[in-house]
């Protein structure tokens, strides 16, 4: 009798001891798998006068793939793995239908979207996308960060307002205050030209002449005859050209009536990223990209890469794959993204825009990096470019 009781109590002590041992051991890391959806609506490339700089078909996609590779190299040490799900809709395809189907097949908590502005909004407004975190890597429309903002959208590419502001700060630094603005015929050109006008107002430079480019004939032959006449207007310090597809702006250089620098869509260009950015360790990123993609990294690639990296950074710091946890961390001021632009970056709460320095480049080199010293701000000089909090029209909170 005594023996059985002793045995029982002995066993319970043993069981208790085992339980205590198991509970007191450090929690073994479970494997976390994170899938990111890359959703693109390919666009028909407009016919341009010259095909020298035709944009690649996989612009954006390669950036997302590199982001996954970088995340996985880190994730190896944290038992986190990343996967890219690629849904690419051809130009004549129905983007929204494809998006709906993709989200119905499998929920997508993280989406890298590369689509025109209105389609991005339609995606964000889908009921199945309500709880997703969408990174806009393809549409530069300022209104997406402003009146047309969405709670579930963050922007990793710069807005046209940011690009225009960056250029305008440089013009002021150089005291090139008088601008001849040339606006191309396409809707995108009009948007960029408007951004330049708004920026000129913001920074108090002067647009002394505002002209619309309406030439049809082959500028490759006629530029030296047509452009001088076209640019023979008063005096100006700089010519800013809005020609987003690069149809005619390259023929403006050296053909202007007055010897003046050209900026905007050619010459001195404000960009989200460019192959000539080499400082701040960027050479490493450029090399990794070139090795993977077989071409140079473009702004669209960088924006897609940045979105994927934001997810990776959040997962590493929170040690979690839970979408809500990562979403909160990405939006918090704790986020510090090292994206090869020389400083830690995070998202503006009032617009969802990734704050970032804007490189000003020409085809051969980086000229300067905005924002510039002298442009003051109470909180962060990065907020002197793009929409700042007091003027924000986004009403989400």
């Amino acid at each position, binding site marked *: 009798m005594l023996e059985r009781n002793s045995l029982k109590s002995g066993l319970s002590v043993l069981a208790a001891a085992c339980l205590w041992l198991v509970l007191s051991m450090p929690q073994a890391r479970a494997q976390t798998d994170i899938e990111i959806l890359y959703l693109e609506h390919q666009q028909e490339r407009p016919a341009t006068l010259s095909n020298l700089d035709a944009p690649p078909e996989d612009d954006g996609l390669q950036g997302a793939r590199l982001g996954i590779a970088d995340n996985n*190299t880190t994730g190896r040490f*944290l038992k986190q793995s990343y996967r890219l799900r690629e849904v690419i809709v051809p130009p004549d395809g129905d983007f929204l239908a494809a998006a709906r189907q993709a989200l119905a097949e499998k929920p997508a908590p993280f989406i890298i979207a590369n689509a025109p502005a209105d389609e991005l909004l339609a995606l964000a407004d889908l009921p199945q996308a309500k709880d997703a975190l969408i990174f806009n890597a393809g549409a530069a429309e300022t209104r997406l960060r402003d009146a047309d903002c969405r709670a579930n959208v963050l922007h990793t590419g710069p807005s046209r307002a940011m690009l225009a502001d960056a250029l305008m700060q440089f013009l002021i630094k150089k005291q090139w205050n008088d601008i001849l603005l040339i606006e191309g015929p396409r809707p995108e050109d009009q948007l960029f030209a408007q951004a330049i006008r708004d920026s000129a107002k913001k920074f108090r430079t002067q647009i002394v002449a505002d002209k619309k480019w309406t030439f049809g004939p082959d500028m490759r032959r006629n530029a030296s005859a047509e452009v001088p006449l076209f640019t023979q207007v008063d005096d100006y310090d700089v010519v800013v050209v809005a020609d987003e597809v690069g149809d005619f702006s390259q023929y403006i250089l050296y053909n202007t009536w007055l010897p003046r620098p050209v900026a905007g869509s050619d010459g001195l260009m404000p960009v989200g990223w460019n192959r000539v950015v080499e400082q701040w*360790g960027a050479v*490493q990123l450029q090399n*990794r990209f070139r090795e993977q993609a077989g071409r140079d990294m473009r702004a669209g690639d960088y924006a897609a890469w940045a979105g994927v990296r934001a997810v990776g*950074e959040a997962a590493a710091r929170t040690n979690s794959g839970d979408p809500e946890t990562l979403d909160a961390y990405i939006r918090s001021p704790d986020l510090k993204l*090292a994206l090869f632009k*020389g400083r*830690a970056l995070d998202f503006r709460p009032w617009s969802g825009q990734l704050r970032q320095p804007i490189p000003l480049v020409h085809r051969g080199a980086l000229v300067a990096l905005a924002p510039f010293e002298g442009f003051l701000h109470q909180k962060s000089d990065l907020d002197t470019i793009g929409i700042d909090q007091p003027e924000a029209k986004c009403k989400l909170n």
Partner: protein
Amino acid sequence: MQLRLMLALAVLFAAAVPARAHLLFVSNEKDDTVSVIDTESLEVVNTFPVGERPRGITLSKDKTKLYICASDSDTVQVVDAKTGKILHELPSGEDPEQFALHPDGKLLFIANEDDAITTIVDIESGKVVGQIDVGVEPEGMAVSPDGKWAITTSETTNMAHWIDVDKREVVHNSLVDQRPRHAEFDHDGKRLWVSSEIGGTVTVFDVDSKQELKKISFEIPGISQDRIQPVGIQLTSDGKLAFVALGPSNRIAVIDAQSYEVKDYLLVGRRVWHMALTPEEDLLFTTNGVSGDVSVVDVPNLKVIKTIKVGRYPWGAAVLPTN
């Protein structure tokens, strides 16, 4: 009486003047050269050509040779410290950036920036004896004084990887603030210091437990926080002072290595990244990349006493003691 006094004074002076004539080697990243500075005259006495994009620079155990990471040549060059002649090359894996010599003088641990690998090279045989997978863009490299640990920091993965030297594998990973550039062990091997360039901090680890002891932040009046970018670290052997190069803020921080308080910031040249101490630890040299010069710091008085022009984008620094 006067003679005895004079003799006594002579002896006193002879004893008081420290032996100072060492050689400082500085790699000039964009010139593909190494500048040699006499630490007594504080002048450049020689400049010799090396491979492409020289960065990390370190001395052999017997102090007769210099090892130089020629990153774009994908090699480690072995240079005669006296003549500057390139003796031969060691394999290094691709794009070697920084490296650390094992205290036994036999193994070189090299961070291969482009390949996410740490390469181990046996110096005598000139062969690669191991390659270890680490995080994205490894740069910082350090080996503990007892030879048990090799640390690689991965810039984009934001980790310090603890490599067990005997097992030749990574056994622990410490997440640090963004873009860790450099790792440095205390003289007694008890602490590991890691700098985070974009995070703007320096983290100190206890080597035994691998736990974080302290995270040091910096604040310089009038300088925007994002310009304070810690890179290189130098520690005095008495464990009392730590120097941290703060990049584009153009200053180095002087830290009380016991209390972790920043005692002072010294203005040096532009974009200061790395440093080297003389064996007596009475002089500290800083490499100022953008201004292309080296600043000389009088350590006991914590004052910058001279600036010496070198080549373009000076990067690494190593002092060869000569007595």
